[in-house]
Each structure stands twice: as structure tokens, then as C-alpha cells.
């Protein structure tokens, strides 16, 4: 006994011919009305024509939601041709507000079914899983592990079908609903769908609207993606880690450089002289030091002033003059030191010593011109001037560190903002940074 599968019933087809002249007809739709006009004799088909009524009722039934990819369109995904055979709109309610997304069923007789989902311009390429993922329910956020990847719970909601067209692997009806739980690991998402009698797992991969338009050769451009979607890949995400790794590398290099320059710096004392300044004394206070050699390649010169000021200040006008070229570096240094005792305890301000680095001084024969100044009445200050050639400048390393740090911090900030936006839509929203309304 052999009863084969029932073959599909052949569709009943009627033709629309012009009742007047039997010629070709044109279909026009304005709003909800469908009219048929004869191109030759311009007679309009009677609105009560039963065939026209079919088109009319069909339009009313399908006008509510228009699939972005028309049913029947074909496209190549992962090297296989698929036809779009079904479409549904599903709706969830969050805080009383409805949110809907669209699902498309794709079919290939040999490869089976795939799905595309679309929400606010965000698309996903979905297929059913053959093996079950591992569910870990513990912790604040439940996670699921599949093929070595961990997916974090994003949202669980009751999803109901609110509109359906075409074919589905099972007979979907409006009103049918399932509990849908999404777990994300951008750009992928694992979804479980549970009805009373069945649980199905599927995996989706985020896909750009432009790729969908290219695959199905659709006219125009895809709708703009609004907001950040649950498994939308972070544009900077993977890069951010890489940048910090690069930063660590640069930091290491910086330390090595610092040690290196420390070692090769000459740090040679080329001159030192001790002087006495009496602020009460009249006459020319300026003087010049003996000449000294600044050897080696162009580098800095440290001029260090050590004094014995005590609750007073001394100001030194310095000029480092190249005896041969006549070029000079002119700078002034104030050295002040104050201390006392008040209700908060003892305090100090300033210091008795000062040092400054004169930049990029070529080698040659130099001397210092010194002109001290002080408040008249203060009396005598003893001070020593020491000149060192080629000293390490640590402040520059600090600047370089900052320069290297800033892009990494900015990038991390952008990535964190993106993730903040992503998770704001989930069942586990992050604590708000700004003000609530």
C-alpha cells in the first residue's frame, strides 16, 4: 500500500480581460483602491468584478506591513541561492510600549531554511542550531556558552506574531507567541524560543543593511539603522584592546629609552662658582663668570642655583653667552623660601635651590653673565651657581606619556559610550551617567 505525499493543489487562475475590447489592462492603485483601466478603450473595469474584488481585498489585507524584501525575491547568501518565501512581524511589550521587528524566511530546497531579522534598520542573518548551547544561570547576568564563545543575556520577552505572509516551516498564526531570550556576543546572538511544547535555539550574525540590499539587488537604499542594536559590533571594540597593547609596548619603550638616555647623558659639571650678594650695596651688581667649555653634540645645559635665602628672595638674571658666536640665552630665575608657624601648624613655601635647563645649546666656549637682584634691606645672600652639560630631562617623558595616553583614553571612552547605549536597551541597563528626566 503506497500513498505518496499529497501533491500541492494547482492554483486557480483567471485572466482579467477588458470587457469592452478584450485588450491588455493596466492595474493602478491609489491609496486603498485598486482600479483596472483598459489601455485601448479606456474603460474601467467594474469595481464589482469578482476578480477585481480579490485584488482589492488582498491589498487591504497586506497593506498594513510591507516587507522590505518583497516575497519571491532571490539572493545568494554564503554561496547558496535562497528565495524569500515568508514574512512575519513580531511584537513585544516593554514597560507597556510595543516594539516590533520583522522576520523573513529564506528557502533553498537542498540547504533548507534561513532567516533574516530586521529591527530599526539593524539586520541579522539567522539559522537554527543543531546542538544545544550550555546555559549558565548563575550570576547577575545569565550566560550561555556555544562553540567556545560566551554569550551574555540581553533580554527575555514574550513575542507575539502580529502579521504574517507567505510560508513558514510551521504554520505561524497571528496571536501565536513564544518566550524569546536573547544572549549576545557581538556580532553574534543566540536566541532561544520557547512555547509550551518546544524550545528552539538559533544563532544570528549582525549584517549591514547595505549587504542585504546588494544580496537581493533591491532598489534604493536600506533604512538607516537607529540606535545601537543588541549584537551590533562595536566599530572600535576589537581595536581598543589592540591600542592598549600598543600603548603598553610604547610604555616599555619609553622606560627603556629613559634608562638609555640616562646612561648616555654626559651629565658633566663644567663650571661652579660661589658668590656673595649684598642687596644694600650700591653699584653694578652684574658680573661675568670665567669661561668654560660645553663639549659634545648640541644638548641642554643645566644651570643650578643653590642659595641660603631664609624668608626672603633673590632674583638672578642669567645670560649664557657663546664667546665665539655671540649668541646668548637670556633667562631669569627667582629663588625664594619662606616658612612659618600658624594655626594649622608649620608651613613652608618655595625652596632654597633652583635649576633650569637651557635647551639645544651647541658645543663651544661659553661664560655666564649674572645680575642678581634682591629687596633692599635684606642684606647678604650667599649663593652658588653650577653649570652641567647634557642632563636628562624627565619632564619630556611625562609629555610623551600623555601624548600616547590621550588617543587610547579617547577611544576607550567612545567604546564605553557605545556599549552603554547598547545595554541601555536590555534587561540589564547600566547605571545612568547623566540626569534622569
Amino acid at each position: 500500500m503506497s500513498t505518496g505525499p499529497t501533491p500541492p493543489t494547482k492554483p486557480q487562475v483567471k485572466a482579467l480581460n477588458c470587457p469592452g475590447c478584450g485588450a491588455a489592462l493596466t492595474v493602478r492603485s491609489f491609496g486603498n483602491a485598486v482600479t483596472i483601466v483598459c489601455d485601448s478603450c479606456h474603460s474601467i473595469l467594474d469595481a464589482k468584478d469578482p476578480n477585481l474584488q480579490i485584488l482589492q481585498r488582498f491589498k487591504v489585507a497586506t497593506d498594513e506591513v510591507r516587507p522590505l524584501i518583497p516575497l519571491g525575491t532571490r539572493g545568494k547568501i554564503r554561496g547558496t541561492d535562497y528565495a524569500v518565501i515568508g514574512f512575519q512581524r513580531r511584537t513585544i511589550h516593554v514597560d507597556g510600549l510595543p516594539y516590533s521587528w520583522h522576520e523573513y524566511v529564506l528557502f533553498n530546497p537542498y540547504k533548507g531554511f534561513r532567516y533574516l531579522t530586521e529591527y530599526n534598520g539593524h539586520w541579522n542573518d539567522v539559522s537554527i542550531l543543531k546542538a544545544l548551547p550550555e546555559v549558565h544561570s548563575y550570576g547577575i547576568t545569565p550566560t550561555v556558552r556555544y562553540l567556545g564563545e560566551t554569550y551574555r543575556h540581553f533580554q527575555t520577552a514574550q513575542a507575539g506574531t502580529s502579521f504574517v505572509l507567505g510560508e513558514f516551516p510551521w504554520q505561524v498564526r497571528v496571536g501565536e507567541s513564544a518566550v524569546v531570550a536573547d544572549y549576545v556576543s557581538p556580532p553574534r546572538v543566540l536566541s532561544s524560543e520557547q512555547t509550551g511544547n518546544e524550545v528552539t535555539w538559533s544563532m544570528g550574525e549582525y549584517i549591514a543593511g547595505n549587504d542585504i540590499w546588494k544580496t537581493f539587488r533591491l532598489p534604493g537604499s536600506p533604512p538607516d539603522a537607529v540606535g545601537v542594536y543588541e549584537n551590533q559590533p562595536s566599530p572600535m571594540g576589537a581595536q581598543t584592546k589592540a591600542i592598549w597593547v600598543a600603548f603598553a609596548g610604547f610604555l616599555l619603550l619609553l622606560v627603556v629609552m629613559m634608562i638609555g638616555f640616562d646612561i648616555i647623558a654626559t651629565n658633566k659639571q663644567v663650571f661652579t662658582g660661589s658668590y656673595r650678594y649684598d642687596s644694600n650695596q650700591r653699584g653694578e651688581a652684574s658680573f661675568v663668570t670665567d669661561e668654560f667649555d660645553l663639549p659634545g653634540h648640541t644638548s641642554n645645559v643645566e644651570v643650578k642655583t643653590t642659595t641660603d635665602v631664609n624668608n626672603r628672595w633673590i632674583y638672578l638674571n642669567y645670560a649664557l653667552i657663546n664667546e665665539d658666536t655671540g649668541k646668548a640665552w637670556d633667562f631669569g630665575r627667582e629663588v625664594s623660601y619662606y616658612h612659618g608657624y600658624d594655626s594649622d601648624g608649620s608651613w613652608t613655601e618655595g625652596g632654597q635651590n633652583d635649576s633650569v635647563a637651557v635647551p639645544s645649546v651647541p658645543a663651544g666656549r661659553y661664560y655666564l653673565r649674572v645680575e642678581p637682584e634682591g629687596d633692599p634691606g635684606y642684606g647678604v645672600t650667599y649663593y652658588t651657581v653650577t653649570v652641567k652639560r647634557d642632563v636628562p630631562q624627565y619632564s619630556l617623558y611625562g609629555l610623551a606619556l600623555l601624548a600616547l595616553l590621550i588617543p587610547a583614553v579617547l577611544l576607550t571612552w567612545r567604546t564605553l559610550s557605545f556599549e552603554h547605549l547598547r545595554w541601555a536597551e536590555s534587561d540589564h541597563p547600566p547605571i545612568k551617567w547623566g540626569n534622569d528626566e
Partner: protein
Amino acid sequence: MIRSLYLLYGAVVMAVLSVAQYQGWSLARMNEVKNVPRSIRDNPGAYRSIYSSYHHYTGGK
């Protein structure tokens, strides 16, 4: 892409830093003066520093 840009940027920063360290760049504010005559060695008072007439009191609490 971003990573390559950052690596390039970092390399430039390090290169500039190396030059700065070698050439002895410094953040100190300097005034460069040209053609200081040799006579200053005998007459230091004749040199007019732009920093002279400094009477700015910046001490105490």
C-alpha cells in the same frame, strides 16, 4: 586600521622624544639673543637683559 594609525602616531611621538632628549630640548622659557659683543666680558653692566628691572614680589603667605 585604527591600530596602524596609532602605531604610526606612537612611533612619531617616540621619534620626536628621542630627538628632543638627544638635542636637549627643554620646556624652560628662554630668550635668545644674538651678537653679544665681547666687550661685555669687561663691562657686564652694559648688557641690557630684558629681565632687568624685576621688582615683582612673589613671596610670603
